[in-house]
């Protein structure tokens, strides 16, 4: 995908981030992109071209579901919500992520 370097998003991180921010409640696509951008102190930018294919894959995996809601601008729009499977997946990914970062830090510290 284009602009991988510019948006600062490590490959494969997006699903985990989406799962993470959906923990606190359902969101529509734009809000997700916004929140990731803001929460990362504007380091991470979510491209539309990456966000929507990822969301479709997550729908397919059954990690999230989509339902209609009303946006803050009073538009009918789909909100994505975490499923129990999604929660389990997040837990698994976080555990894996923690282990890997810990391992990387260990290596860097002793090197």
């Amino acid at each position, binding site marked *: 995908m*284009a602009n991988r370097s510019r948006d600062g998003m490590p490959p494969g991180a997006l699903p985990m981030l989406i799962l993470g921010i959906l923990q606190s409640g359902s969101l*529509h*696509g*734009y809000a997700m*992109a916004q929140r990731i951008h803001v929460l990362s102190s504007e380091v991470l930018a979510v*491209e*539309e*071209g990456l*966000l*929507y*294919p990822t*969301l*479709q*894959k997550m*729908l*397919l*995996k*059954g990690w999230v579901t*989509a339902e209609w809601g009303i*946006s803050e*601008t009073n*538009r*009918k*729009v*789909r909100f994505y919500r975490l499923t129990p499977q999604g929660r389990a997946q997040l837990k698994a990914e976080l555990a894996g992520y923690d282990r890997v970062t810990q391992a990387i830090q260990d290596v860097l510290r002793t090197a």
Partner: protein
Amino acid sequence: MSELWRRIHYLIYRRRLDAELDADMQFHREMAARAGRSNFGNTLRMREQAREAWGWTWLDNFITDCDYAVRALRKSPGFTLAAVGTLTLGIGAVTAVFSVVNAVLLKPLEFPDPGRLVVVRETEPKIFGPGVQEPVSYRHYLRLKVESKTLEDAAIFQDSAVSVSPNGDRPEIVGGVTSSPNLLRVLGVQPFMGRDFVDGDAEGSTNGTAEVAILSYDGWKDLTGGDPKAIGKKVWLSGGPVTVIGVLPREVKLPQIAWGDKITGSQGIGSGEIMVLMPFAPNDWDLKADTGNFNYKMIARLKPGVAMAQANAELNTLQQAYVKSAHLPIQVGAVVTPLAQDVTKGISSALWMMLAAVCGVQLIGCVNLANLQLARAVSAERETAVRAALGAGRGRLLQARLAESVVLAVAGGAGGVALAYGGMRGLLALAPANVPRLNQVHMSWTVLLFAAALTIAAAVGFGIVPALKNMRVRPETALRANTMRAANTRESRRTRSMLVAGQVTCTVVLLLVTALVLRSFSRLLGEKLGFDASHLTMVVVELYAPQYAGKLKNVQAVKLRFADRALEALRDLPGVQRVALTSTVPLTGENWVDDLIRPDHPVPEGQRPPINVRWINPEYITTMQVPLVSGRNITGEDRENPYVVVISERTAREGFGDENPLGKKIELDLPGVEKSPLATIVGVVADDRINGLKDTASMLYAPYWLYTPWTLSFMARSAQPADTLMPEMRGAIWGVDPQVAIPVLKPMDEQLSDSVATEQFQTLILGCFGAAALLLALVGIYGVLAYSVSMRTQEFGIRMALGSARGALMGLVLKQAAVPVFIGTAAGLAASFAAMRWVRSLLYQTSVLDPVAIGGSLLLLLGASLLAALMPARRAARIDPALAIRNE
């Protein structure tokens, strides 16, 4: 909810879901625009990427490709028609044959746990011949059933046709079975109405006059009109009222198994659908005989987990132990056969052969299509090259090229299924009556699935070679090259030649098998019957009525009286010259086989020659026109001194060797008579093939006044056409007694052709397939050569301009044809050699190396190939060099 299910859900609702995704993205963009950003990517591409997540892109692509293929095919209707036609015929024929194979051979029998059902037969190498299986004796059955630890239960039964009539007159014969009371329990089925037999049911039922009966579903429909209150009601069987105690469910068809390897028994009477089951009661001699009376079909159920070989070994051990302990003079063994295999014994190899043959034809047809596709692929090369140059992947290109084959195959497959539906009916009409389970042949899901698989196989089969070849072309070459030259590269010519060689291989095998079967059939038909079957009309009469019941004291006199009156009535018919009477319907196999016992020359039991006993009237020999070799015929005057018999030459040879049999005495085993009387041989007649065309039989002809059978076959010799004679014969018989049944009434010629129905069917079908294969191969050879000549027009023009002779050009083309034909023929001969193992069992007295069959089919193939090659060769020779060179 699984992932697969979500994928399918998406596929079904994709229109709505895609719209929702679009709305999401639209909203996103609007919000971003508000926030002051406006650098969106390619929205179409983004949407596509998002949708790809669901994994249905290939389907979209495929639909697009098919759509394109349909449009391309519409532009060349000739090719499309030829391809779809070939496929329709091929798939239709294969599917039709498969539907028969599936119903007859593949579908498991409709009994619970059918794999545990077996047929048990006895062997006795000296009496029956080595390896020959025959039905079991009642005593041996009882013993095996009790002693065996591998059999859960075992039942015996006999086919016994019964006569049915509403009021006793003019009865019809239907199929019936007399069985031990546990037959249904062994099979694992129950009546859906009423009850099963219990042990007491058989009391008082001898000679087929049972007091209770279970009806099959067909019997219930036929005999009671499907009466829901049929239980407890009476039906008229064999002239007497019988109480219905049960009705079998529709799906239960009692298995029709052969008696044994030689004895056919039913004589074609009442061999149709079984309608009635009656309880079996053993006769006195059933309970006594240990060395004879092998009269019962035995079906057993193995205990769970018992292997066929285990049961076989155990039963043989039990038999041998019994022979030893009871000091039997014979050596009985046992053979256990799976029921499913036994039911189809006579026909399975012929059916498999048919399926193989029709698949061969389909293969040859596919090769033709592959060749046509190859030619088309050349013109598509430029297009493929353009696509490749624009960045299409190999997989995507392959798919695009295959789409055309898929479209053709699907059209052919649909047509094929329709054709198979008709073909199935045709096969059923042609098939001999003895093929089991034919009534179960129909368009089932299995058959449709098979047709679908066949369609896919065909699409890939004839599409993949051209498609792959197409892939290998480098874009720059294809874009630059002249189509004609590209089409005729050495490599593409080799591919086409290889395909033709494959085709010839298949054709050689098919032609050889066809030729062998034809030779065998003509040899069979060429056998001298030994009697004159023309102008002979047969009426078979069954004496199943109370006045002929076996328990009556004077039944022999009653039967004899009927026979005498019937003979007289038939003789009185206009135009009838002579009337013969015999106890076994001619050309239906062995039926009544006894040992030849000579008091002057005792031979231990088991080494006595077997004889086929026929109870005949004196006119039999003269009516059938069997030549008298020595001595005299039986005459009417012999009634005074009735114990006289006539034997055939083979009996004389086997029983008397060099001695003169005339005047010798033999024991005559008369049913129901304790002490066999001695009879004098008064004459020897020539051998004939009265049991069937395949072999002569050793005969013993005894007069009908000594014993008159319940099944009487009358044969009238008359100059009158059979069509006029037959109703008159029926009238004459019913004039004597309207209560007897007439199960068979037909000209002997017809009986003769019916007796070879299986061989005829096999020959006809294989002949059709062989001819189709040859024709397709011809088209293939012609097509490839004609195409190649048209591509090389310019080259030939140049050659000619440079002084090449026309004959040399023709030779060039013929040589091109000769290579694949010779390679294919050699490969075909090798393949045939491997296939001969299966063919051998179908042949009658014909060696698989029959020189006429091999030589004939090779000559036919080479001649036909030459013919197919000559036309394009002549065209090459007639090319006008001036025109050819100018015409780029």
